[in-house]
């Protein structure tokens, strides 16, 4: 009787330790999560919202940080073509760079981050925003 009790206690202890080890793993980006997109320089958040919608990224965009599970922050920079580039290189297209990070609001951990740099961007900020959206979608598909 005593031996059985000891065995049960040991097995329960082992299970509890395994569970705690698993729960300490990194937070991951999950499909269906509610994401709040914070304001970014040059209104890049608007481009991101459109890109997420266009690329059918399985995340729900919310307007309020309080209702969100995740928060997206980012920065973007555009370098318009100067006269020299237009005349000598025959290119009117801008150079774009952008970066985003997604943080889990509960744990405070950054679960995803991505940066993109496009020279002679065909569609300006739209191209960089869509690159971000595609990579978020890829990450979500990995965790399915």
């Amino acid at each position: 009787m005593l031996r059985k009790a000891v065995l049960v206690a040991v097995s329960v202890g082992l299970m509890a330790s395994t569970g705690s080890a698993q729960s300490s793993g990194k937070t991951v980006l999950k499909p269906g999560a509610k994401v709040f997109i914070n304001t970014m320089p040059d209104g890049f958040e608007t481009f991101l919202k459109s890109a997420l919608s266009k690329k059918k990224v399985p995340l729900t965009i919310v307007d309020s940080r309080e209702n969100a599970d995740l928060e997206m922050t980012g920065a973007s920079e555009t370098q318009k073509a100067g006269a020299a580039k237009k005349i000598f290189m025959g290119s009117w297209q801008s150079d774009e760079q952008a970066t985003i990070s997604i943080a889990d609001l509960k744990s405070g951990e950054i679960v995803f981050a991505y940066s993109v740099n496009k020279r002679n961007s065909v569609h300006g900020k739209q191209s960089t925003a869509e690159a971000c959206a595609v990579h978020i979608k890829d990450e979500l598909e990995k965790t399915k």
Partner: protein
Amino acid sequence: MLRKALVGIVMVLSAAALSSAQTPSNVVRDESDTHIPSAARLYIAPIEGGYDIYLAAAMHKKEVPLTLVTDKSKADFELSGVTESEKAGWAKTIFLASTATNEQASIKIVNLKTGTIVFGYNVNKSNSARGKQSSSEACAKHLKEKIEAR
């Protein structure tokens, strides 16, 4: 008896003075002071131009074995840095047919418990292929090497 006591006191005082004078130069730092353990929690302080986000992205891409957090109070280490971009001027565009920027950045990581600077790195890239992304990835790569070196 009194003389012996005086001599004893003087010897003790001089030994104490000597040891205190030697302390700063003789301190041998424990290697664990500059160690960044794998899976440690790192907070990246805001850097001009959103470079902190480029660094987060670079660490994600290079799979640096650290957990990035947005709250300093939950972190073991803090990364801070500066960055500077120099855009290509008209002469570079015409004569070198290059619109690539010159990038430089510098980062340091501080252990928030001990206050020790555990890592520092500078990068300078002329004609950076991917602007800030290139310099941030260089920082991430070298940080990963530092963590995995042990």
